[in-house]
């Protein structure tokens, strides 16, 4: 009994000693994290070989520039000016002098080395935490030399994931409709490019009108709307082979297609006699299923990432609003109740939000709301903009924006823009031509 008392006493004594002072830090600065991206070091022989192979003077610094631009574009990082760097790339990669990097206020440092090994590009890189004075990540990739841009994107993805805790979105591509010519006589082609605007390829010739291209989950197929022979139909295109086919045998117009999250189905709208309903078609057995059945216009379907729900817009309440239903078409619930018209709902790959276009008092907004319709946030407002598409990590939206035509019929343009969920980081996405209807692929690697 005594012992127990003593024990209890002994347990209690240290409590006092632990009476710590606590200070709550509830604020910080939201300024981007200062990052130093050192040029990747390269030995002389490899440098010469790469110069011959890729016509690039210094592939090491080119790759570091890709990383730098990617990081900058997120708005979460502030890549420091390379002129301020005190250490040479090759030395920094082995063992950076952390004091030197701390001096220029860098909090993270990326170093790397490029070499040509057996005709292949080998890149290793390290991420250093300057303030903690340690390496926090080191990786190496080997690939064909022509893939050097992708290497830059993959490095950014890894760094981004390590420093923010969420997946990156840099090793991705965007498919969009490239537009050229006057507004009255636009030539529209399907185009695909890297997320940063490089490596553009055109997938169609521009003989017929194309709209709303969407990737499948493996990024090898695209479904889109084409006015081939003036019949608007949903088509399927294999990016590698270029083979196209019509989806389903509908006696009328099909439009607004999207893949299901498992890639096995296409969901789309089919319009006949002034009514439009949502249908799915199984790509394996070509079975067509009618999902909605309502005398109003139901369109723009988009699956939730788990495939259990579908969001779409409908004017069954009198105005165009966003609805959510189970993937079999039951349990339809209206989720948008704000003023104005809501359209083009897209379920976030993270599953937590639905992005939409809203038209209110003549202005177009891109916004997000939770999947139950609460927490509506409008991210950007403009004269005309629509068709948001999510980055694979559900943090950034890409959409297109058109400018007004002046009285002379000039000044019209259509460009791709991106905005992140904070609503502050809005940037134009570089494209070779005018562009509309973007769709973001998932991550190409892993």
């Amino acid at each position, binding site marked *: 009994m005594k012992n127990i008392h003593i*024990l209890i006493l002994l*347990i209690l004594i240290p409590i006092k000693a*632990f009476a710590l*002072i606590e200070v709550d830090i509830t604020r910080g600065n939201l300024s981007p994290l200062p990052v130093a991206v050192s040029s990747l070091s390269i030995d002389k022989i490899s440098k010469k070989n790469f110069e011959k192979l890729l016509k690039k003077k210094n592939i090491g610094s080119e790759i570091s520039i890709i990383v730098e631009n990617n990081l900058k574009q997120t708005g979460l990082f502030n890549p420091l000016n390379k002129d301020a760097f005190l250490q040479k790339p090759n030395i920094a990669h082995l063992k950076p002098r952390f004091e030197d990097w701390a001096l220029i206020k860098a909090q993270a440092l990326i170093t790397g080395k490029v070499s040509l090994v057996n005709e292949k590009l080998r890149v290793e890189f390290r991420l250093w935490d300057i303030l903690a004075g340690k390496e926090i990540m080191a990786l190496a990739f080997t690939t064909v030399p022509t893939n050097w841009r992708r290497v830059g994107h993959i490095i950014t993805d890894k760094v981004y994931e390590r420093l923010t805790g969420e997946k990156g979105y840099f090793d991705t591509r965007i498919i969009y409709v490239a537009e050229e010519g006057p507004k009255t006589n636009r030539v529209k082609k399907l185009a695909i490019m890297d997320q940063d605007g490089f490596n553009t390829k055109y997938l169609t010739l521009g003989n017929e009108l194309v709209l709303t291209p969407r990737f499948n989950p493996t990024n090898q197929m695209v479904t889109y709307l084409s006015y081939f022979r003036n019949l608007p139909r949903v088509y399927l295109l294999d990016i590698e082979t270029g083979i196209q086919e019509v989806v389903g045998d509908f006696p009328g117009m099909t439009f607004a297609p999207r893949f299901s999250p498992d890639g096995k189905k296409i969901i789309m709208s089919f319009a006949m006699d002034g009514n439009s309903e949502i249908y799915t078609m199984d790509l394996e057995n070509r079975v067509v299923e009618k999902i909605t059945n309502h005398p109003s216009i139901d369109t723009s379907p988009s699956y939730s990432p788990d495939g259990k729900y579908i969001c779409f817009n409908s004017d069954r309440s009198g105005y165009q609003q966003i609805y959510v239903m189970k993937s079999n078409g039951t349990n339809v619930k209206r989720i948008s109740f704000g003023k104005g018209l809501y359209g083009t709902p897209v379920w976030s790959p993270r599953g937590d939000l639905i992005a939409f276009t809203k038209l209110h008092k003549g202005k177009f907004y891109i916004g997000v709301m939770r999947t139950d319709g609460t927490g509506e946030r409008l991210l950007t407002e403009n004269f005309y903009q629509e068709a948001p598409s999510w980055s694979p990590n559900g943090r950034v939206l890409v959409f297109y924006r058109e400018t007004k035509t002046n009285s002379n019929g000039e000044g019209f343009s259509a460009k791709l823009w991106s905005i992140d969920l904070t609503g502050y980081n809005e940037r134009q996405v570089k494209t070779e031509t005018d562009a509309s209807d973007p769709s973001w692929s998932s991550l190409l690697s892993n």
Partner: protein
Amino acid sequence: MNRSIVISSGFHILLVIITAMSLPFLSKELIDLPPIVSVELIQITDKTNVPFAPKAKKIIEKVKKKEKEKLVSEQAPPKKVKKEKPDAVPLPDKKIEKVEKIENKKQNPEKIDNKVKQVSEFEEKELFDPNNIAALIDKSKEETAESTNKLDKVTQDQDKNLDVVGLSLSEEDALKAQIFGCWSIPLGLPYSENLLVRIKLQLKPDGSVIKSEILDHARMNKPGQKFYKVLAESALRAIKLCSPLRVPTTGYERWKDLQLNFDAREMLEG
């Protein structure tokens, strides 16, 4: 002989195990105490540490005496008590000192103004109305009753423990302001997650950090908690960046161990 050695060593081992196992839990409990009243108030006097003017001291003593003599009624005083003659009294420095002392006794931060008025009035008239004082005491007791109950002994017998507890408001603010500037919150964190990182620091007298320790260290490597690691690292960076911390110049014993709670929720949700 053997038996007692066995028993003895048995208990020793048990002790070690209990100490090692239980301390974090116990300390957690303490840490979770509602900090409001104890932290803010008590220390101000201590920190300011200005000697009382003789006159003021007398009055305070008188008040104290009265306080002891009077049996405190449990009823709340009429509200007008605290509102009377608001503009009548100038607030020279000496008087503020007195106020702090009184306030300290009563543990009620919101009352400062009223007390200032009261005390200065007393001073002017060289007498005071005991009923008023009693009423005031009453009032403050009533209002703080709830929070007092929750506090540990430290607050109960504050007079002795004042110097062991917390930082003053201004000290805390200085430290906070410094760290606010150093902490780059990772903006990619998911909302609606538990975004609290608690870090225990061991400090040198000049405020530089000897040791920093993340209290929920286990969480860093749990699957699906990647963001927590990111957040914890950002907090550690902030501490490094801010080192040496802006700590008070005195009372090293008080703050040589310090816990910082980095909470990103407010920033990310708002």
